[in-house]
């Protein structure tokens, strides 16, 4: 055996039984993390093969180099020996190693401190837990909506405290700054609508009705919808991240204790800005979308631009147009509330800010789509 480990080799151990019913664990070679070292499980296997033992001691005459790998090995062993009530004699270990092991086993684990690496709960239990969490979040979000409502009433009464400069900055951020992306998306959506319609309509030689399809589609649904989705991803996420990081850095606490309501100071300007800017962006999106449709109509279907224009004017009623604008204002409110809600709910770490932004976008889009469905039903019932 001695010959085997003549040259410096990677760490290994051997167990030797003594006549008195004890075990000597021999550690040898280089126990280094980067070279890999035996695991405690292998020692456990080795010890299980023999009879039970009452004493353990160590022999480290051939241990050349060691680092945390051997400490971890010995600490695990030590805990196992404690459980099996075997007397452990650490005098055979090098002094430094012995001190480290003793340091690690000195403080007993605080009861209840261990959280375990995610013990998987049963499916039913998980459903129950998330249902309860959902139940808890409903009053929370209702309280938020209520506070926003109170702040809005104060605004109408002219008593709300917010800075006009802040409002202007937010208006710029979620108005003019968003025009570029709204242009791009709306133009493409208009063009896509035209393509989809063209495939069917040209079979009947009714290509001109592409203008009706795109015009009504953009004005009534798609303009508001696409702007809302863009703004949810762009501005809703930004609101959540801004307010979330203000929460992390205690700026929201500072406002509260200054006697300034964060709902008036932070949420109101954002709500106002989005409610004002969304209809503007939506109207812009409608027009750009129709231009996109016209590009397809003129370029591919050989509809003269004049006819396309007249057909669009004829098809799109003011009701359709106003319905779209009205919806977009509501979408703006929903996006602002979702963004601010998740920002305020943000935990106090930097990863929580990311979660808040994600949550705000998801909730914003879901609410917008649900609201869109409700509007469709209402419009159908009312007959507009």
């Amino acid at each position, binding site marked *: 055996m001695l010959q085997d480990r003549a040259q410096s080799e990677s760490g290994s151990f051997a167990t030797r039984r003594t006549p008195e019913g004890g075990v000597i664990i021999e550690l040898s070679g280089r126990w280094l993390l980067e070279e890999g070292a035996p695991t405690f499980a292998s020692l456990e296997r080795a010890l299980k093969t023999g009879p039970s033992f009452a004493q353990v001691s160590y022999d480290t005459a051939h241990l050349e180099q060691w680092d945390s790998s051997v400490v971890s090995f010995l600490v695990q062993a030590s805990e196992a020996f404690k459980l099996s009530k075997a007397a452990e004699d650490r005098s055979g270990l090098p002094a430094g190693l012995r001190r480290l092991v003793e340091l690690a086993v000195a403080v007993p684990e605080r009861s209840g401190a261990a959280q375990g690496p995610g013990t998987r709960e049963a499916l039913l239990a998980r459903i129950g837990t998330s249902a309860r969490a959902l139940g808890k979040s409903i009053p929370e979000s209702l309280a938020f909506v209520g506070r926003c409502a109170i702040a809005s009433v104060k605004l109408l009464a002219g008593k709300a*405290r917010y800075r006009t400069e*802040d409002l202007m*900055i937010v208006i710029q951020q979620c108005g003019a700054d968003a025009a570029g992306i709204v242009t791009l998306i709306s133009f493409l959506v208009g063009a896509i609508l035209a393509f989809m319609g063209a495939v069917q309509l040209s079979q009947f030689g009714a290509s001109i009705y592409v203008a009706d399809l795109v015009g009504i589609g953009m004005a009534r649904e798609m303009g508001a919808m696409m702007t809302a989705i863009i703004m949810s991803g762009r501005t809703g996420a930004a609101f959540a991240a801004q307010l979330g990081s*203000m929460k992390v*850095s*205690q*700026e929201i*606490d*500072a406002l*509260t*204790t*200054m*006697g*300034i309501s964060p709902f008036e100071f932070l949420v109101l300007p954002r709500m106002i800005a989005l409610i004002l800017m969304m209809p503007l962006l939506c109207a812009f999106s409608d027009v750009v979308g129709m231009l996109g449709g016209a590009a397809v109509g003129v370029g591919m279907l050989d509809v003269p631009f004049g006819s396309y224009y007249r057909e669009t004017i004829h098809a799109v009623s003011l009701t359709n147009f106003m319905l779209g604008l009205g919806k977009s204002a509501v979408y703006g409110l929903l996006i602002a509330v979702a963004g601010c809600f998740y920002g305020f709910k943000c935990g106090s770490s930097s990863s929580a800010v990311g979660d808040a932004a994600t949550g705000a976008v998801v909730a914003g889009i879901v609410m917008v789509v649900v609201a869109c469905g409700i509007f469709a039903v209402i419009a159908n019932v009312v007959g507009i």
Partner: protein
Amino acid sequence: MTEESHPASRPHITVRNLTMAFGSFVLMRDLNFVVSHGDVFIIMGGSGCGKSTLLRHLVGLIEPAKGEILYDGFNFTKAEPEERERLLRRFGILYQSGALFSSLTLIENVSLPLGEFTRLPSSQIREIAALKLALVGLKGFEDYYPNQISGGMQKRAGLARAMALDPEILFFDEPSAGLDPISSRLLDDLILELRESLGATVVVVTHELQSIFTIGNNSVFLDTETRTMIAQGDPKQLRDHCPDPKVRRFLTRGSEQPIAA
């Protein structure tokens, strides 16, 4: 402001049977203490024992699970929102990280409470805000944004904002955390100076022994194990004469205490 630094007996803040809890987890129970006018009151205790949480209760950021907090005999816990806001305007709070509004310059930060709660013209607001910044040694940094200055300067700017409305009570959350010894010493001097000149009551959350002995004349000691306060009084007295060895150990940095009670 008349010179009345040591009337010593008029209670400014009274905490009665305060229990702090998060859901069913009780952090501290049965806290009872009184802070007198002009005190520099230290809230001390080990890490994670709820010192900062107690401060957040005192300023109304967290509602107590039980008990009440009174300011000059006025029940803050049960107050209506408007009354509470009025009371809050008499507080100045310096948060651990400064909590400056990152989208505003230093002078805008200090001006904000002045603009919201006074009827001063904006030129005068700027003058007063500049004065407050000068008081904390930040003259010339008026138009800097918080992320352009160092952590210690952010804290001082936070202090300038806390002092904007000449508060009656100044709360400090770990003022010396993250500061070098000299800056933290300067901040201590500033706290004492402010107490003298403004006649304010000061409440400080800290576990910095040097600060505790330099500035504190009254204190409460929160203990994690028993989940309540185990000592109160002048920290220097507590260090030498507190019957509880845990408090003496804390105040002597763990070294043995020969003057056992």
